[in-house]
């Protein structure tokens, strides 16, 4: 079946012939490799995207259900020389190590800050509880986002 939807403001049309996920379509069919596959069961948030305004794990979304939907993936957030404030904050706080979880954290944080530009530390933690980072211990990520929320780095 052919499924049509919008990714990062671009209309796309994909032939879906397998019981694959949105993550498979993003990576394998559309060549959008920023979303990462790490657990394949919605536990780690490495494949986070914003689907019709909701933060989701793209590995849990059936590709065949995408008709008419709108997706923002990491490729739709910021650009070289024009980082999103969330990316700027993470960068200057040294919140990146291996970087495999980073796109997912960026998408989840962008989702949070677009809903509330000044989340409390507790709200930041709750919002990121679905994203696993194995390298940083989360400290630098929290410092970055708490700084952004309080306007220190924003």
């Amino acid at each position, binding site marked *: 079946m052919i499924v049509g939807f919008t990714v990062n403001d671009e209309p796309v049309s994909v032939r879906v012939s397998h019981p694959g996920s949105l993550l498979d379509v993003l990576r394998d069919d559309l060549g959008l490799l920023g979303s990462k596959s*790490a657990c394949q069961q919605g536990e780690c948030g490495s494949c986070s995207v914003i689907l019709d305004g909701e933060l989701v794990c793209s590995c849990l979304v059936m590709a065949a259900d995408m008709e008419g939907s709108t997706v923002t993936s990491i490729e739709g957030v910021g650009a070289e020389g024009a980082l999103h404030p969330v990316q700027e904050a993470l960068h200057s706080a040294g919140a990146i190590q*291996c970087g495999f979880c980073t796109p997912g954290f960026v998408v989840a944080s962008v989702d949070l800050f677009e809903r509330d530009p000044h989340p409390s530390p507790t709200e930041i933690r709750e919002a990121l509880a679905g994203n696993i980072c194995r390298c940083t211990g989360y400290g630098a990520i929290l410092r970055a986002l708490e700084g952004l929320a309080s306007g220190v780095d924003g």
Partner: protein
Amino acid sequence: MTLDTIRRTAIPEGGIGQSPSRPDGVPKLLGEFEFVQDLKADGMLWAATVRSPHARARIISIDLAPALAMGGVHACLTADDVPGRATFGLEHPDQPVLAGDEINYWGEPVALVAAEDPRTAVRAASLVEVTYQPLPPVTDPEEADASDLVFRRIRIRRGDQAAQGPVVVEGRYELRMQDQAPLGTEAGLAIPDGQGGVDLYATSQWLHVDQEQVVASLGLRPEQVRSHPAGVGGAFGAREDVSLHIHLCMLALHTGRPVKMVYHRSESFTGHVHRHPARLWYRHQAEEDGRLVRVEAKLVLDGGAYASTTSAVLANASYFAVGPYRCGSVAVDGVGVRTNNPPSGAMRGFGAVQSCFGYESQMDRLAAALGMPPLELRRVNALVTGDRLPTTGQLIEIPLPTREVIDSLEAMPMPDEGLVSHHSLLPGGSGLTTEPVHVRRGVGYAVGIKNLGFSEGFDDYAQARVRLVDDGAIVETAAMEVGQGLVTVLAQIARTALGVSSVRVIHVDTSKIDSAGSTSASRQTQMSGGATLEAATRLRTRVLGHFGGDALDDEGVWNGEELVAPWQQVVEGEWAEAATFRHPPTIRPDEEGQGVAHADFAVAAHRAVVDVDVELGLVKVVRVDTAQDVGFALNPESIRGQIEGGILQGVGLAIMEELVIEEGVILNPTFTDYLLPTVLDAPEVEALLVEAGGSWGPFGAKGVGEPPAISSTAAVAAAIRDATGRQLDRVPIRPQDIAL
């Protein structure tokens, strides 16, 4: 070049002691950084692995015909197709590339499939018909010990073996199996070169040792295999052994096509080695004033089915079995056993974690028996420069600030007592299960020690090359960047030594440079950093000599106030210098375990504060503070990242991370069932960097990656004991250990 020399001259922007941003930070933030998982090649096939469903079995037959009959399948290979050495292994090549006659662990690779796309490959793998005769697996490590199924035994005897003290404490302790769980699973792409050779891009911690093992098992000449650096999503030891490397190269040469493979998470759990589970027995004897008189230990580490690095992990566990403490009478018997459990090998802390949980639990028991504050007992016994390691007898010549880390930790402020600010920070978290009335606070301490770099006589070296180019300088290295920040720190070192601020690190393949050694053992900053410093210093001296200058910077060569050679004139010539750095030599200790086994040591102390719901057995680690011996802080922000990340892995081992093994089978090989700490589990961390200098690392720096993961587990366990009054001799500590 010494630190004092450097400090007398200007350190350029982005030099040592600063925390410049990672050069790979922006690409990672934009999702543009290329990981192995993201690689593609024209005409690429996809591979899948057929794995044993039994922990121990005899292979009766393998029928590839149903898989080969599937459309889109290009190859099915078995042990018979391994062209060269049938086995591989980091220290001892005892592990079959593909199982031949027998299966020794659950998930052992039996056959390989290459097909047009990943789904076809997985489906074809499921069609390979393997007939097994299951056999009873050996899964009890003490039974294996009794049957002499052993990779290595270490016997240490030092001092008067009849020594006795008036205060005696004895205990048995257990650590279960922890997984490194890097976010990126094993992945690789092998591309045949059309002339019988192959280029490999794969997750790795040590390109040259991967390459050597591929060469041996493919029966090729070394120059026919090039192992290339590629983007790696974390490592923590899981990538020191080869996993899919030989498999991919076999398939690529067999099919003549590029072949890619990416392990599924559940496959990754069986596709790499894990932290050794351990059973420990300890007896400590002390004077009434707390001074240790005698320490005895028996350490049993489960190496699983194949050797991997069990020998070296056991060495660490044994040589650090007493911890960073003085003791004149020591008897340690360590054994690494062979079972049919999943193979164990490298994980951050590498043996030192296991014994630390034992000796620090003992120190708390001893402190309680003596009625002494736990840190006071540790201070009384602190091992310092000029002492001898209580196990091997090695004289400690490099600054070892054990007392300083203890004193610094003690001086750090304690968090406020009283209820946390939000229910999500209670032990039951957002589940709202915890009644505040059941919450008890506890505080625990632990101090740990570990060697830095490879030990026991291993010829440990790293090569780096520094080259001047049009826009500055580059550092070429085969050292793997796996997230730890080597790409930043090598540039900082080169900038400082050259005096030039524009420096990039270029990772190159095994044909372009000699080995940098392993990205493990907390060693790359010291080893590849040492090579970079030496190469850059020599290069600067040569350039200055050639142009008759006394200073080099981004503008060129200066003599006093005069620019004697602008940069573009300098780089008209070829300016490159390679250096191979070796740390001080070590030896394999004698039959009594005596000898200079180690090149360097680092210590760290941790204080954990926990809230425990004693009714439900739930734990919230509120805070972990630490003071760590770093020698010299080359990049304070990066060190803080290592400390926070390492502590959280230690917290994971203390309260949640356990691969549950039953009859050799991993019962929880998913992120749903193998629990990893999330941001809601992360404690606040305050870290104090103790800079005693004096190491042979660049500018006196020590490796910093492992110490955070060594005593943090023991500190959290101690804090939970303090909160609950329970002995808790096993980690991870489960709710039922606290509440039942």
